[in-house]
């Protein structure tokens, strides 16, 4: 019979829990070199041996069981609830060999919960370079547990970890710290009141909200004087507990853990000297961003053209092979152009994720946090808001969740609210196509205008985020004091596999998610565009042919006239026409209006929508870009010119056109209030920004 046990991975941030999780389960959860990559619990399964299977749980990193931010409280909530389905049979505390002392603090706390606890010392590949030696056997005896030395990078020790886990029942559950040494009277009376409970557990339940209070979470000023007073009392005990634990740990490590400083090579200080230099640090950050945007343009133009023309050929080929009919039209005029509108952006999106994940893997992100904290504080943000803001350039959804490790509720809320202004990858398709249409493809000092425009749009997103943050900072009253403690991790060479996984998973998710929406919307659009009410639609051909104005035009032109007349009187045309008065002042026609409507579900649908609309009833097979540049206004000038192009870019820069982001904001703020405010305010800003810029530029 196969037995299943629950294994929970716990540890300080950035010690490699997720790497161990991936090694055990074979899954590909995101790994990165800054504290706070994992913010939710994640589950997987693993076969330990022939008779034992394990459900493995990966948790957010935490420095101790005294939680002070939302991601940390996930861990405590689980460990205090014996009835939780995920409650561990055995806990695995993952530690970083270099920071063993600090990591052991959490270990002793977990052990005091009287759960069988295995100590995993990870990153053992670093020991030689850092001159570290450990007497594992002695340490095992002192800590009264099983220890496994592993390296997920070098794939060492995973098997022996599995073997140890199978034998979890033999691990001692005796606690390490006697709470009576913290304060005898207090804990004695506690014991008298609840004689059958683990003292440390009781203590955790009592103090659970001392650092990360309910008060702060929901902002209910319910606490009477008594509670606050006793809180500072409890806090004193927590500190005394920490000091006691360190005393024990120091004593143990003195005998078992040695560092030979001479063997250590110091990459950290050499890199930090320039990367967080008061002047050069900022210059380098700017140059890094600039190069990323240049690269996105320069490296992806060839694969993009290739994809674009492939889709055209595909459409043509299918048109020839498939029997003519409604279904063929749906495929060649609706689905394929729509999908092409998303697939074409794969190269750029992959490059974007590639660069972001390199920045994450090297440890550079925390340096940016350091550089930016002072500047952002003024606007009610926090240095840690940089990570949501930068990862928001990939997608706002994980970025909103990444705000969980900001301790102050107010700074966290502001971060969540402004993150959707950063240029996410779904905006990229819209920008790219518009830029290539309206910005000249020329260079100045080797820097292309198109790349500069793209970077300008990214900065605009950040700027808007900061401006609105500072507004909100004024509006929201301050209730809690914020503090800021950030670990600066070691620099690491990015592991190509981790980067590859991130790029692959994220790009795939983007294509699949967007693909589903596109598929649905392009079918809907096609149906609505090829059907219409009344005689205007059904008799389009006769109506145009008998129109005296068109008497002398060539048959080809006549075809086009018929097609566009029909489109105008289809259902979609009527819909677009009905909103035209509202968007004409922004420089958009009714076809763009349709794309605007459809992209309220998701921005990236814009290009696909236009591609579908322009394809319907149009036999000529052209690339998306050519189709768009061929569109003209009634006066004969191109529809997409500088004024309307910029106006559209601004609209997309500011509007909240993403259902998924609204949903996640609702989840993270516990209600509809903030997402609705976000939706209304952003749409309002977008409309007026686009209006003003078009009226000035036209």
């Amino acid at each position, binding site marked *: 019979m196969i037995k299943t046990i629950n294994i929970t991975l716990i540890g300080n941030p950035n010690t490699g829990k997720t790497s161990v999780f991936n090694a055990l389960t074979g899954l590909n959860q995101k790994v990165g070199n800054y504290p706070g990559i994992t913010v939710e619990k994640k589950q997987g399964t693993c076969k330990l041996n022939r008779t034992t299977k394990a459900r493995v749980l990966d948790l957010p990193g935490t420095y101790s069981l005294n939680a002070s931010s939302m991601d940390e409280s996930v861990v405590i909530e689980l460990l205090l609830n014996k009835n939780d389905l995920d409650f561990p049979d055995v806990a695995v505390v993952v530690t970083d060999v270099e*920071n063993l002392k*600090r990591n052991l603090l959490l270990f002793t706390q977990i052990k005091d919960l009287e759960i069988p606890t295995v100590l995993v010392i990870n990153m053992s590949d670093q020991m030689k370079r850092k001159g570290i030696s450990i007497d594992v056997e002695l340490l095992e005896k002192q800590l009264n547990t099983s220890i496994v030395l592993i390296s997920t990078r070098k794939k060492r020790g995973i098997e022996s970890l599995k073997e140890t886990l199978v034998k979890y029942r033999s691990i001692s559950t005796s606690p390490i710290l006697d709470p009576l040494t913290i304060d005898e009277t207090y804990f004695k009376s506690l014991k008298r009141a609840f004689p059958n409970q683990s003292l440390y557990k009781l203590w955790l339940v009592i103090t659970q909200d001392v650092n990360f209070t309910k008060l702060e979470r929901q902002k209910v000023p319910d606490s009477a004087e008594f509670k606050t007073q006793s809180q*500072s009392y409890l806090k004193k005990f927590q500190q005394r507990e920490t000091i006691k634990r360190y005393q024990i740990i120091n004593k143990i490590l003195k005998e078992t853990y040695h560092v030979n400083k001479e063997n250590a090579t110091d990459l950290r200080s050499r890199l*930090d000297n320039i990367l967080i230099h008061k002047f050069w640090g900022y210059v380098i950050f700017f140059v890094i961003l600039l190069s990323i945007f240049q690269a996105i343009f320069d490296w992806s133009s060839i694969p993009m053209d290739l994809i674009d023309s492939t889709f055209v050929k595909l459409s043509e080929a299918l048109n020839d092979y498939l029997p003519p009919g409604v279904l063929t039209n749906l495929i060649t005029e609706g689905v394929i152009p729509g999908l092409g509108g998303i697939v074409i952006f794969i190269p750029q999106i992959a490059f974007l994720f590639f660069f972001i994940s390199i920045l994450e893997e090297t440890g550079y992100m925390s340096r940016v946090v350091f*550089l930016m*904290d*002072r500047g952002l*504080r003024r606007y009610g943000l926090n240095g840690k808001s940089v990570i949501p803001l930068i990862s928001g350039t990939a997608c706002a959804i994980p970025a909103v969740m990444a705000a969980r490790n900001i301790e102050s509720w107010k700074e966290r809320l502001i971060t969540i609210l402004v993150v959707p202004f950063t240029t996410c990858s779904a905006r990229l398709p819209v920008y790219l196509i518009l830029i290539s249409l309206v910005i000249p493809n020329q260079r100045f000092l080797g820097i292309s205008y198109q790349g500069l425009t793209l970077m300008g749009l990214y900065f605009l997103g950040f700027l808007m985020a900061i401006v609105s943050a500072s507004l909100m900072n004024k509006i929201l009253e301050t209730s809690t004091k914020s503090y800021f*403690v*950030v670990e600066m991790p070691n620099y690491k060479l990015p592991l190509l596999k981790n980067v590859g996984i991130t790029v692959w998973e994220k790009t795939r998710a983007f294509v699949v998610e967007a693909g589903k929406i596109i598929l649905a919307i392009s079918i809907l659009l096609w149906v609505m565009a090829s059907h219409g009410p009344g005689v205007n639609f059904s008799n389009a051909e006769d109506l145009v042919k008998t129109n005296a104005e068109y008497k002398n035009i060539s048959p080809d032109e006549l075809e086009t006239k018929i097609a566009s007349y029909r489109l105008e009187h289809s259902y979609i045309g009527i819909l677009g026409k009905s909103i035209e008065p509202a968007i004409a002042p922004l420089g958009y026609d009714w076809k763009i209006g349709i794309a605007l409507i459809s992209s309220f579900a998701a921005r990236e649908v814009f290009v696909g929508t236009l591609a579908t609309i322009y394809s319907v009833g149009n036999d000529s097979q052209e690339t998306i870009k050519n189709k768009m540049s061929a569109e003209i206004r009634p006066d004969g000038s191109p529809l997409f010119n500088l004024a309307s192009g910029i106006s559209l870019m601004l609209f997309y820069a500011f509007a909240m056109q993403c259902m998924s982001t609204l949903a996640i904001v609702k989840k993270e703020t516990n209600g509809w209030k903030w997402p609705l405010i976000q939706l209304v305010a952003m749409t309002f800003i977008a409309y007026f920004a686009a209006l003003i810029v078009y009226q000035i530029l036209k």
Partner: protein
Amino acid sequence: MISLDKLGLGKTAIIESIETDFLPLKLIEMGCLPGNEVSLLYLAPFRDPMYLKIDEAHLAIRTEVAKYIMVKPIS
């Protein structure tokens, strides 16, 4: 004895005492305890935040928090 925010760049000191009512527990858990060594490695513009090495941990804190840590410079 001075408060940590006054420590010179590149200098090392021993933590003498901490004002436990104001210091976040997290900092104490990361090793900011009396008796441990602290060095000021880097400063952002306007001396804020400060990049410290406390015991074995490398971390950044804001000046307003550093005020609550009293240290005795040793170099």
